[in-house]
C-alpha cells in the first residue's frame, strides 16, 4: 500500500492533492520563490530597457542638439573655431542634407560620448569647408539616426555645412559605397576640397561602414 494509493490511510485534516494534478512533494522554500520572482522580473525589466534603448538615445540626442545649437551661435565658439582649439564634444557645424531631411549640429570628435550628439567630425581631418578631406561620422539607428538613409543619396545631391565662421555646399560625387571598419583610406587627404560621410552598415550592424564622398561646389561665405 503506497502513501497516495486509493484507500491509503491519511491523518485527519491532511490536505489531499487535487484530482488530475501531480503532487511532487512539499512546496518550494520561500527563498526559491523570491529568487524566481526576482529573476523573472529582472528579465522583463532588462528586456524593456533594451527595447526602449533606441528611443531613449533619440530623446537624449534631441536634448543635446538643443544645447549644441545654442553653442554653435556663440562668439566663443567662433573664436575657438578660428584658432582650431575645439574640444571633443563642442559644436562644430550644422549639416543639412535636403534629400534626406537632415538638419542637425555636428560635434567635434568621434568618441562614443561625442557621437551621442548624432554625428561627429573626425578630428584628424580638416575642419568643415577647409582644404582637404573633411570627414563626419553619424549614427544610423540610434541617437537621432541622422544617417539612417545615407544609402539613398545619389550623385548630385547637395550637402550643406554651416560653421560658426562661414559655410559651404558639397555635392555627392558618386554612389555610396561600403568599406571595412579598418579601411581608413577614406579619411586620407584629397587634393580637392571634399567631404566624407561614414556610418555603420548594414542598418543595426557595425560589421561594415557605408561611405558617401562629396566635393565642394561653392562657399556660402568667405572663410
Amino acid at each position, binding site marked *: 500500500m503506497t502513501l497516495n494509493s486509493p484507500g491509503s490511510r491519511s491523518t485527519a485534516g491532511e490536505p489531499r492533492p487535487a484530482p488530475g494534478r501531480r503532487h511532487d512533494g512539499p512546496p518550494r522554500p520561500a527563498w526559491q520563490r523570491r529568487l524566481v*520572482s526576482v529573476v523573472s522580473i529582472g528579465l522583463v525589466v532588462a528586456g524593456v530597457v533594451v*527595447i526602449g534603448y533606441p528611443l531613449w538615445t533619440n530623446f537624449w540626442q534631441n536634448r543635446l542638439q538643443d544645447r549644441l545649437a545654442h553653442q554653435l551661435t556663440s562668439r566663443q565658439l567662433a573664436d575657438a573655431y578660428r584658432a582650431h582649439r575645439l574640444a571633443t564634444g563642442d559644436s562644430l557645424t550644422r549639416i543639412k542634407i535636403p534629400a534626406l531631411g537632415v538638419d542637425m549640429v555636428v560635434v567635434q570628435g568621434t568618441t562614443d560620448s561625442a557621437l551621442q550628439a548624432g554625428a561627429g567630425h573626425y578630428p584628424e581631418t580638416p575642419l568643415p569647408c577647409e582644404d582637404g578631406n573633411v570627414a563626419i561620422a553619424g549614427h544610423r539607428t*540610434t541617437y537621432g539616426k541622422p544617417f539612417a538613409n545615407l544609402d539613398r543619396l545619389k550623385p548630385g545631391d547637395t550637402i550643406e555645412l554651416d560653421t560658426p565662421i562661414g559655410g559651404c555646399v558639397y555635392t555627392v560625387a558618386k554612389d555610396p559605397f561600403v568599406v571595412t571598419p579598418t579601411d581608413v583610406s577614406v579619411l586620407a587627404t584629397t587634393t580637392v576640397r571634399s567631404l566624407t560621410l561614414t556610418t555603420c552598415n548594414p542598418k543595426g550592424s557595425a*560589421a561594415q561602414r557605408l561611405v558617401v564622398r562629396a566635393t565642394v561646389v561653392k562657399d556660402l561665405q568667405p572663410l
Partner: protein
Amino acid sequence: MKVLRRFCSLGVLGVLTAGMLSGVASSTLSATPASANLPEVFAATASAQALKLSLFGTTLTISSTNAEGDTTPKAHADGAGAALITASSSVADSTGANQSVTTPKNCGIVLPLQPLAGVLLACSQSTSVTASAVPSASATSNIADIDVNLLNPVLNLLKPILDALTPLANQVLGTVLTTVNNVVQPLLGSTLTNLLGKLGIDINKPVSSLITALQKATNLITIHVGDTTSQVATTAGAVVADSVAQGAKIDVLPGLLVNGDPLLSITVGMAHTTSTYNRVSGASAATFDPAILSIDLLGSVIPIKLGSPIDLLAGTPLESVISLGAGSTTTNADKSVSAVADGVGLDLLKGINGGISLHLAHAESAAGGHTDTVTAATPTTTGSTTTSLPVVTSVEAVRLATTGTSAPVLPVGFVLVLAGYLTRRTFRSRRAARAPR
C-alpha cells in the same frame, strides 16, 4: 592610451623636426639649387601590463613596463612591480648621445626564506642606452617571483640510498628501456630516443643520468606572477620594439632539459607583440602572439586562444568587448606598424564612464620611420622639401567610427521579456500544481 600619448608626442616632435628641416631645406634651395639630404628618422615603442583593472575611471595596474626610443636620440624605459608601491618602480632616461643608465632591481618586498625558497615581490629594473646616438631601452617587472628550492635538499637526503641502488637500477631499467626502444622504434621512429635526448638521459644508465639531470635543475618549481618585459633595440639594420606580458607562469623543474628549459611550463594569460622597422628598406612589420593558456611540455608548446575579439552591443553604452587570446596588427598610412595582443581582455559597459576593464597580460608595440633620402631640389626661391615622419598611432585610432550596434537590439529585448514571462508562468503553474486542494 599611454602609448597613444607617447606617439602623439613623438608625432608632434616629428612635425616640428619636419618643419625645421623644411625650413633649412628651403633656405638652402633659395641660396643654391642643390639636393636636400634628409636624415633617417624612426621611432619605436613597446608597452606591457600583467594586470590592469579599471573600474569606472579608477585604474589599478600591476606590473607594467614601457620602453621607447627614437632618433632624437632618446631612449626611455620604465617599470613598476605594483603602481601603489613606490619602491617597486624604476625609470631610466638617456636623452643625448652616448649615455647609459641602468637602475638596480628595485623590489617592494624581499622575503628571506633561503635556502628553501626565494621570494621577491613587486620588482622592476630599467635600462636605457644611446650609444653612438643609437637608442636602446628595456624594462622588466613582476609582481612575484617564487623559487621553491626543495629539490637539492631532497636529493642530498636521498643520496646514500640512491648511491646504493643506482647501479642495479641502471642495469634493470636500462635493459627495459633498451628493449622497449627496440620494440617501439619501428612504430614510433626515434620518438623515444628524442625524448630521452631532450632530458639528457643515457639509455644505458638512465637512473644515474636522470639524477644528474635533476641536479642540473635549478629549482623544484618556479612561479612567476605578472612578468612583463618591454624593449626597444636598435641595430645597424633594424629597430625592434618587443613587449611580453604574462599573467602567471609555473615552471616545473626549470633547467632539467638539455637546452635549459623546464620539464613543464604552464602560462596563464600570455601576450607577445613585436614591431620591426627595417633601417635599410624603410619597411615596417608587426606580429602578435597571444594565448589564454599556454602549455610547454618537453619543448612542445600548446597555446590555447580564441582569436578575434568579440564585440557585443557595439555603439551603445553597454558595449562590451571580450578578447581571449586575441591580437591584431595595423599598418598606418605612413607605413608605420603597430601590434596589440591580449591574453585575457574584458572591457565591459564601455559607454558608462569608461565601464569595467580587466586586462590580464596585455602587450602592444609600434615602430616606423624612413631612411635617409636625397630629394631633388626645385630651383626656385619658394622651393621646399618635406619629409614624412613616422606618425605612429595606436590600433584604436585607425578604425572608422562605430555608429551602429553588432547586437540585434529589438530581438534581444523581446527574448528577454519572453524569458521573464515564461519563467514566472512556469513557476506559477508548478506552484499551482503543488498547491493543496
